[in-house]
């Protein structure tokens, strides 16, 4: 290898610590609210750890209801993520790589579930996919399929709420990726589908992975749309967040244990994303 710089290389990530300058006194109007803000974010989590019934934790975790809810949560969140990948990546591609009238409007529509209260999302899903809904009634008549209050309904509710995270993440990765590689592939005789499969997708893989993890985390924590659209039936639609809510009314200690499980899952995800995502924000 000569001294020449390789033509294709990721731009070097510069560390934020290189900022020079003379350190001055920190201004208290910034520092004090900052510390209060930090405490506000961290204290509740610390409280959860402090109040956890550590001595009985193993038995409580092994309770069939907890395991059932955890299993259901993991399975539905994973399936919902798979659905989001299958539909969201092509949608992101369409938004990032093609020009069609109304593209901006569609892009705005895609992000609506992001800001919509999840309960409203659940109501909307009921109106469309419910037994008497626009599509739901047809689904039932044609295939005998009914989504509300089923495990499939949980997946639908979670995917509805979580998909924007994936679409936005993947679209960002697509826009950041150099489209000229795709042009190069086209000159080599690759069809647009081949270009997507063999050039675009491998190049945006980190963005897709980050989007999928975010999407999965969002699906795992989904509450409002799920309880509205799928209800709260242990074993079929009662996911962890729903179980936490229910336990809080009957058995607060169990709610703490369940919360602790969800918290550790979140921490594990954050740790996994540390490199790719958190450090860039």
């Amino acid at each position: 290898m000569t001294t020449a710089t390789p033509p294709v290389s990721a731009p070097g990530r510069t560390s934020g610590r290189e900022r020079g300058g003379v350190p001055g006194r920190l201004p208290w109007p910034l520092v004090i609210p900052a510390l209060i803000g930090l405490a506000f974010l961290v204290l509740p989590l610390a409280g959860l750890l402090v109040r956890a019934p550590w001595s009985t934790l193993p038995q409580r975790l092994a309770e069939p209801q907890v395991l059932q809810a955890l299993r259901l949560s993991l399975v539905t969140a994973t399936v919902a993520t798979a659905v989001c990948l299958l539909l969201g990546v092509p949608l992101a591609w369409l938004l990032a790589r093609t020009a069609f009238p109304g593209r901006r409007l569609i892009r705005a529509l895609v992000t609506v579930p992001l800001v919509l209260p999840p309960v409203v999302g659940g109501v909307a899903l009921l109106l469309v996919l419910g037994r008497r809904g626009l599509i739901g009634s047809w689904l039932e008549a044609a295939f005998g399929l009914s989504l509300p209050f089923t495990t499939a309904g949980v997946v639908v509710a979670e995917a509805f709420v979580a998909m924007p995270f994936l679409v936005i993440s993947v679209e960002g990765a697509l826009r950041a990726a150099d489209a000229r590689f795709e042009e190069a592939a086209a000159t080599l005789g690759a069809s647009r589908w081949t270009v997507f499969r063999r050039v675009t997708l491998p190049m945006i893989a980190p963005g897709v992975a980050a989007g999928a993890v975010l999407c999965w985390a969002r699906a795992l924590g989904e509450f409002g749309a799920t309880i509205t659209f799928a209800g709260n039936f242990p074993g079929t639609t009662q996911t962890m967040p729903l179980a936490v809510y229910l336990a809080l009314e009957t058995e607060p200690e169990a709610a703490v244990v369940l919360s602790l499980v969800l918290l550790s899952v979140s921490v594990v995800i954050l740790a996994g994303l540390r490199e790719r995502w958190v450090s860039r924000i």
Partner: protein
Amino acid sequence: MNRPVQDRPPHGGLHARLVVERPAFRLDVELEVAAGEVVALLGPNGAGKTTVLRALAGLTGLTGGSITLDGRPLHTLPTEHRRIGMVFQDYLLFPHLSALDNVAFGPRSDGASKAEARRTAGELLERVGLAEYAAVRPGRLSGGQAQRVALARALAVRPRLLLLDEPLAALDAHTRLEIRAQLRRHLADFDGATVLVTHDPLEAMVLADRLIVVEHGSVVQQGTSAEVARRPRTDYVARLVGLNLHRGHGDGAHVKVGELLLSASDHVEGPAFVAFAPAAVALYRSRPDGSPRNLWRARIDGIERHGDNVRVHLDGPITASADVTPAAVADLDLSPGQEIWAAVKATETHAYPA
């Protein structure tokens, strides 16, 4: 030109008229490149050279015109069906694929089996001398190696038209010389038409059989390197080949440029160009006498180092550059603003019709 276009069957090679219109830019260029011929598009930045290549590749849409390659229309096909080989300025090797798989990409897209495509790619890597780098990712290749992989990848689709966009621009000066010699060899072996874009006249002259100079979206001059170098027709080309160029009016043995009457070695009538090399200009403090030459009173506009010599910019009836030795600068005690006599022998002054 060692392969004249007119000797080829009319349908062979590339025939193109490219019109691309954009706000504040219009490209209108005609290209004829015979099979086996290498044509260099030379021009300043923003002249539209790269747009020509992109239009040929189908990456930029045509506003008008047509492209015919070996008798078949090309402009109606999308990029992936044009069967062209393109080497991009920064190569654009796929970062996630090994050198071998980069080269195999074309054959794979063409429907070859994985093993078959890799065999083709292996042979091509061998041809560019990189067989032992087959498994290496582009990020670990040097600039020169990446350039050769990019060439191999472009040749792997067995193109009938090869497009090279500033193929040596991303290389350092040392590597460039070596890669240029290799590229020249590979281009000589290639039997299709080649269009090469560059802003480096030396690169164009070494690599190409014929030059086409593009400025502001149109062809301003074309011909063999020797023709272009000897008879520049625009200030840009004159600067590239390092000649003083003036436009005037010929009346046989003389060309009148502004108020100055220059004798030339050639006879021209009517609108004419006069060209002479800066090294042919001699400077004197007092009016010289003797052999017949073109003589004028000039004012020194600037003095700068130029290789081993000193380039003196002259103002006066005509603007010109003169290359003199550092010793001459000292002897003549030259300084900006000074009045001086400039002379060029008639035998070193070339005149040709404008």
